[in-house]
């Protein structure tokens, strides 16, 4: 008999070949987990190659999910459970497992050839080398093929449902509901009934296997986390960022103009906003990052909200133009979706190492407000806030918004009242002090450089986030109420069809009328306090 045990949290990693459908499997498990009301956080991990050879380490794709009956903050470091669909998936992930972790492996793919491909001399499922773990070596593929035999698919086609078999098994093991996935499969494969039925059958067979076999003596339950009431959805950082930018622009009554050059992991912002052309969004794929930010700035000069999105290498290239934006006092939002490493770096891996660059990476004193997101959902808020700052601050027009940890993939249950920290919480986060001028949204140009003795980047971005959004209601838990939060935090522009200079410019200068042009001679005069345009210089 299977015991049901209550636990408070678990970390599961699904790993297989790129073609094995691990991302889909993970997504479904996440959705079912969300339905139960657990809190969760996820980390998809794609192969770096577009199409790495099958069965190789380079081709392993994985999806990690951390869920619990309490408020959690990271996708977890060491999986309690690893589902490994082939030897490469086992090898690539084994080092991350703690002693005693559960391994569910599909024996079908542990052939001599596949083992050799990744350098296993002997089959680790059999040679005793996994003694520290609880190994369930199961012929998932074989069982899947058996389960779907009725639908008349070829063997290869039939075996493709093995991920659903694995999902069924895990769904049983962690006591998840099954309706969501069955509905999903019905919808997804509506036009291919054979495939639909095979997938559903495999999913049910996996669930039934857990229930009937003796292999699993314990079954787990994880209670719902005490989440604030509300309607939730999954969201990735880039999507939330895109929606946030749109929300900010909509509240300001301005067209949104994105100038971008494709770069992983920021491209999805370009993709997402490209789909929004009927929302007053123009997207421009420029010839390079410099042109991208230049065009965004030109659009801002014309009265649109100029935005540019990129990753670290692109931000480096944009710096001169960003400093021009500071001088021109035009609104501009720069999104830095961080990747790892210097130079081209590691596009498919994320890291939080651009903060120094975005804070300090310009010549000759051109400070910009910098915001960092705490979670995928927070990317929405941070984007709205960035737009607000860009449009609202009279003398410090542009803002730079690096999204912290979650660019493309990982999703969180997204509710705006959940405040979650990035993975690498500093040991003892210093508090921003009164001397930390940059924690104030007014962000005086010169005083910005007068940072206190502990600039403490991570803590600054976290700590000051609260002080930067003083007007947000403390309880507005459902996404339905998001609009009210926009209206309280985003200062709309007064004119629907904005003049060529931003509104505050018109109100602070004594102009004789719309036909008196002034922008060109205002270039840089104010932020540096100098009396004549710095461009009236040689060189």
């Amino acid at each position, binding site marked *: 008999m299977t015991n049901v045990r209550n636990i408070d949290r678990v970390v599961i990693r699904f790993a297989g070949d790129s073609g094995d459908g691990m991302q889909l499997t993970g997504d479904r498990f996440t959705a079912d987990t969300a339905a139960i009301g657990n809190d969760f956080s996820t980390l998809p991990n794609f192969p770096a190659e577009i199409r790495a050879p099958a069965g190789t380490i380079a081709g392993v794709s994985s999806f990690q999910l951390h869920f619990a009956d309490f408020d959690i903050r990271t996708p977890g470091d060491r999986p309690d459970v690893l589902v490994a669909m082939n030897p490469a998936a086992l090898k690539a992930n084994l080092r991350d497992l703690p002693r005693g972790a559960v391994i569910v492996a599909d024996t079908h793919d542990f052939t001599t050839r596949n083992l050799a491909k990744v350098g296993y001399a002997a089959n680790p499922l059999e040679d005793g080398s996994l003694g520290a773990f609880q190994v369930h070596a199961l012929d998932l593929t074989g069982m899947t093929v058996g389960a779907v035999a009725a639908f008349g698919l070829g063997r290869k086609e039939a075996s493709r449902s093995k991920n659903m078999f694995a999902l069924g098994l895990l769904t049983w093991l962690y006591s998840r509901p099954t309706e969501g996935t069955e509905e999903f499969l019905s919808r997804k494969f509506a036009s291919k009934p054979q495939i639909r039925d095979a997938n559903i059958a495999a999913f049910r067979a996996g669930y039934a296997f857990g229930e009937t076999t003796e292999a699993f003596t314990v079954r787990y339950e994880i209670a719902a986390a005490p989440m604030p009431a509300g309607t939730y959805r999954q969201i990735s950082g880039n999507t939330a960022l895109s929606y946030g930018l749109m929300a900010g622009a909509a509240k300001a009554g301005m067209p949104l*103009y994105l100038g971008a050059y494709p770069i992983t992991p920021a491209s999805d912002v370009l993709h997402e906003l490209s789909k929004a052309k009927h929302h007053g969004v123009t997207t421009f794929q420029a010839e390079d990052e410099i042109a991208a930010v230049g065009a965004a700035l030109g*659009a801002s000069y014309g009265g649109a909200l100029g935005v540019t999105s990129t990753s670290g290498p692109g931000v480096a290239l944009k710096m001169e133009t960003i400093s021009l934006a500071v001088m*021109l006092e035009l609104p501009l939002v720069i999104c830095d979706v961080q990747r790892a490493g210097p130079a081209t770096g590691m596009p498919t891996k994320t890291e939080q190492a651009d903060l120094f660059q975005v804070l300090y990476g310009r010549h000759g004193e051109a400070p910009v407000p910098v915001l960092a997101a705490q979670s995928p959902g927070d990317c929405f808020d941070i984007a709205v806030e960035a737009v607000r700052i860009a449009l609202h601050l009279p003398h410090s027009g542009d803002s730079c918004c690096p999204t912290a940890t979650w660019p493309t993939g990982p999703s969180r249950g997204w509710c705006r009242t959940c405040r979650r920290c990035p993975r690498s919480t500093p040991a003892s986060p210093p508090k921003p002090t009164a001397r930390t001028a940059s924690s104030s949204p007014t962000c005086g140009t010169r005083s910005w450089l007068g940072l206190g003795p502990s600039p403490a980047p991570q803590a600054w971005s976290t700590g000051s986030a609260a002080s930067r959004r003083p007007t947000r209601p403390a309880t507005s838990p459902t996404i339905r109420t998001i609009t009210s939060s926009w209206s309280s935090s985003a200062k709309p522009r007064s004119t629907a069809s904005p003049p060529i200079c931003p509104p505050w410019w018109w109100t602070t200068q004594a102009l004789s009328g719309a036909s008196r042009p002034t922008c060109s001679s205002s*270039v840089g005069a104010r932020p540096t306090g100098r009396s004549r345009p710095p461009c009236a210089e040689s*060189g």
Partner: protein
Amino acid sequence: MTTVNRKEFVSDQEVRWCPGCGDYAVLAAFQSLMPQLGIKRENTVIVSGIGCSSRFPYYVDSYGLHSIHGRAPAIATGLATTRPDLAVWVVTGDGDALSIGGNHLIHALRRNVNITIMLFNNRIYGLTKGQYSPTSEVGKVTKSTPAGSVDTPFNPLSLALGAEATFVARTVDSNRAHLTEVLTAAIAHRGASLVEIYQNCPIFNDGAFDDLKAGPGLIPLRHGEPITFGPDQSQGVVRSADGSVRVVDVAQVGLEAILVHDAHASDPSQAFAISRLTDSGVLRQAPIGIFRNVERPAFDDAMRAQVSMPAPEERLAALQALVSGQDTWTVA
């Protein structure tokens, strides 16, 4: 043309080019031209990069942006896309447009963004006090090339034609009438217009265009007319067997043999061949006028056609639907 009109486009800034700089003449021609075209100064924006020539916007009483080195075409692209009501000019130099800004220039041309580019070519870096530029002749001795430069210069118009430009022209600072004529056609063209302007820099490259003025060096192109020039139109241009074009005595070949200029030809090959008549070393010979002027949908028009802006409330409602998504769950 009345002086009253011209003054409309004269700003209150003291003009600070060197005495005798060719930039003055272009500025004056521009200021006279604009009111004539009926373009209002509040609908005029001049975006420039950095260089002597890039100070142009200061002196014109219109909107303008003196930006950073080489990036004016990119900035103008964003502006033109956002604002169909504006006449967007780009003012740039041979260094600004062809050296650091080369990429933005060729991409603006291929996209056919609705901007009018005035490229002041003095074959030198003026503002940084005299280094050679991508249009300087081989062997140019400058501060950065004391032993003479070794790189072949660009022919800006060949480059533009290779970059799919729809409007390509050349004029000279010293010929007010020609300057006005070419700029008028350039601004009338919907799409990207590139006008190269030979401009003398008396301080760092004086007399760079003198050989052109002296001899029969300028070859004016007039659409639909045979390409003849020189005293009594005694010289003309014919096509050689190898596909290039060359200069001959009209008397020797007869006027019928002379090429008739077709600025509207859809294929740019002949315009390209004509652009090769320009000397790449010391300038003794160069065609001027409109090399190419063809219709193609402008980038910004096509972009705007894809974009629509719902009414404010609709916009927020549609956005809310997007934000809410399809797959939600509720916590009670």
